[in-house]
């Protein structure tokens, strides 16, 4: 993993000191809330319904055990003993006091963490494949490029006051676990015909009020020109993005208005003029790359007899292995998914004890490496198959071993009206109802991959547009209703979901999901996933089932 050097550490200390001064000026009344707002937002501090919320950056979703333990400690000291992992692979504390914020930032800086640019109209935390460095599918380690982008985007002199927030994802596998096509910029690592490393550059994806799947504006960008090309995109956006209406200010609107071809032409023209002055030298890229070099793998056989024997005697372990254990590039190793979606729990929440369990397991069995996924789970990317039984037992004891990765109860949900000032409706209870309805693990496995995503408002933090089943909370005359969409995807087959029909009252949602699943089980052919069946049959049979009573 990347280790902060003296420069990176100085930077965090300076930032923390700066914010301490700003908070002091605010508390002394020298800054109005209006003047203070953008400053606190640049440090991830939101004012929510009940308290301040602090959003802590987890760059490209990568954590070490020391950092995870510090998050646990902060949650105990300054919050209510838990935190919420988000779809941007950040961690949110929802019960923060303004006067504590500078101390929290100092505590974070002590373990090389921060809340820089987790909010505000700037370049946000970069997303990368949570299986980076572990999956055999990848062409290169996307963390190398994500770290380069982290540094380049940190307090950028020109691009810190953009028309709107800006999100970048980097993926290097055919299977996209970053939702790259619905980011402002999605970067997919490719090999050129001559074998050279580069990126397919996708721009203008996004969710929110007007969802778009991004357009490819360059099929192959030589890897070492990444930063200058990003600067060209950002410069065109900074100049031309709308600033008169925040709902139309994201780059997706600019790309849609100009057309992807014209946008690409302007980027290319700017890029040509700007030259390569901002590109990172090879020595710096090599320095970053070395930090992610694979280490400490043992030479093992692909099959672990101990693991096979344990599975044979424990159906629970076997089920966990079927759903939460993914193939590793190294023989004898596996990628372990840690579920933050226990049935009936709040998706993405982890309490301090759970954070410490994961930290301990990562240290003891997982090369000190922890990842956060945009689907709000955790990953131990390097676990020996020999150790999976022990890891499973420890996770199960902490209620972190729900065997539901990618299944119906692995639901994404935003904090919703339980916490958020923007929300129209609650998201968490809906997720809980659905998960409880599908609590039978045999049934969930029989249904197979089914991604349900819930947002409490049109801002779409719960990514409902790209759910196989998407659920959007709306307010109808003071009552919570839910609009269902079908057929969305944030993966390599990205698509925006299609509306099912009129919004449903809260008590109908879980039942409707059940009805949709029954239609799928009835209609599916061969190995089709829910998404495949929907794409083949279209919306009609699903609509008929859910609205049968209305006829």
């Amino acid at each position, binding site marked *: 993993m990347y280790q902060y*050097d003296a*420069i*990176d550490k*100085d*930077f965090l200390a*300076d*930032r923390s*000191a*700066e914010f301490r001064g*700003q908070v002091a000026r605010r508390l002394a009344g020298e800054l109005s809330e209006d*003047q203070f707002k*953008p*400053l606190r937002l640049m440090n991830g501090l939101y004012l929510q319904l009940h308290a301040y919320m602090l959003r802590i950056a987890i760059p490209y979703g990568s954590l070490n055990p020391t950092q995870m333990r510090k998050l646990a400690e902060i949650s105990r000291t300054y919050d209510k003993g838990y935190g919420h992992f988000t779809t941007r692979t950040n961690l949110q504390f929802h019960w923060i006091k303004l006067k504590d914020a500078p101390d929290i930032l100092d505590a974070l800086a002590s373990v090389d963490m921060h809340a820089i640019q987790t909010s505000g*109209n700037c370049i946000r935390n970069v997303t990368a494949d949570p299986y980076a460095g572990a999956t055999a599918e990848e062409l290169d380690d996307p963390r190398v490029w994500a770290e380069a982008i982290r*540094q*380049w985007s*940190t*307090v*950028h*002199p*020109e*691009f*810190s*006051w*953009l028309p709107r927030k800006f999100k970048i994802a980097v993926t290097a596998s055919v299977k996209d676990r970053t939702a790259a096509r619905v980011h402002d910029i999605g970067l997919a690592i490719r090999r050129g015909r001559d074998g050279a490393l580069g990126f397919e550059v996708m721009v203008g994806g996004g969710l929110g009020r007007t969802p778009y799947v991004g357009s490819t504006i360059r099929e192959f960008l030589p890897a070492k020109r990444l930063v200058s090309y990003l600067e060209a995109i950002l*410069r065109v956006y*900074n*100049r031309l993005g709308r*600033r008169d209406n925040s709902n139309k200010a994201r780059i997706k609107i600019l790309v849609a208005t100009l057309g992807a071809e014209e946008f690409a032409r302007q980027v290319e023209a700017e890029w040509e*003029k*700007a030259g390569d*002055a*901002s590109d*990172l*030298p090879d*020595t*710096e890229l090599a*320095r970053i790359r070395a930090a992610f070099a694979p280490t400490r793998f043992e030479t093992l056989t692909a099959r672990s007899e101990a693991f096979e024997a344990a599975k044979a005697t424990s159906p629970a372990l076997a089920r966990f292995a079927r759903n939460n254990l993914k193939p590793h590039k190294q023989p004898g190793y596996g990628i372990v998914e840690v579920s933050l979606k226990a049935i009936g729990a709040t998706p993405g929440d982890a309490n301090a004890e759970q954070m410490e369990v994961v930290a301990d397991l990562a240290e003891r069995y997982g090369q000190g490496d922890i990842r956060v996924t945009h689907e709000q789970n955790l990953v131990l990317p390097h676990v020996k198959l020999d150790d999976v039984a022990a890891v499973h037992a420890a996770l199960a004891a902490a209620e972190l071993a729900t065997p539901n990765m990618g299944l119906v109860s692995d639901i994404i949900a935003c904090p919703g009206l339980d916490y958020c000032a923007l929300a129209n409706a609650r998201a968490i209870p809906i997720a809980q109802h659905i998960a409880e309805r599908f609590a039978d693990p045999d049934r969930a496995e029989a249904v197979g991959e089914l991604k349900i995503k819930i947002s409490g408002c049109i801002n779409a933090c719960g990514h409902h547009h790209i759910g196989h089943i998407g659920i959007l909370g709306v307010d109808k005359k003071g009552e919570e209703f839910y609009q269902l969409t079908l057929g969305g995807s944030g993966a390599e087959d990205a698509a925006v979901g299609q509306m099912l029909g009129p919004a449903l009252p809260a008590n109908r949602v879980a039942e409707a999901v059940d009805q949709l699943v029954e239609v799928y089980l009835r209609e599916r052919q061969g190995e089709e996933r829910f998404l495949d069946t929907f794409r083949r049959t279209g919306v009609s049979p699903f609509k008929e089932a859910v609205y049968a009573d209305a006829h």
Partner: protein
Amino acid sequence: MPTRIRLQDGGFSLVEDPFTAVADDLQVPPGDVIISLTRFQAEGERLLSEGRAVGVRLESDEGAEALAYDLPRIAVVALAFPKYRDGRAYTSARLLRERYGFKGEVRAVGDVLREQAGFMLRCGFDAFEPADGSSPEDWERATQRFRHVYQRGTDARAPAFEERGQ
């Protein structure tokens, strides 16, 4: 005489401002003036021929390209911040310095707060009309908050990747 904060030889100080900013609906007074781009395009030749110093104010939706061929004759480009959140002027400042080689004064006007000082300095601004009552000392402090920077800017600071290479 009015004043502005000026960056000279690496230090900030309050200096007198010989320029009068003239709105489009007012007559141009004698002496050095800062006028809009529209007015410059209409009256710039004449005003310059009178031997006075002329500055041009660019609104945030006006690109620096519009001045590309005139820059050697212009003393000041004033870049407007209608709101401090409007970041277009940072790009304009960089283009003026890096692409068009402008050597004159690049001045931040409008909703200009000390919190922007670090960003402005790195994009090539060297004169400031703060709207928050901040002093040259405030600006000095604000620009010295970070011991390191991660990107190449128009200032002389070495980015982290160069510091590391040394």
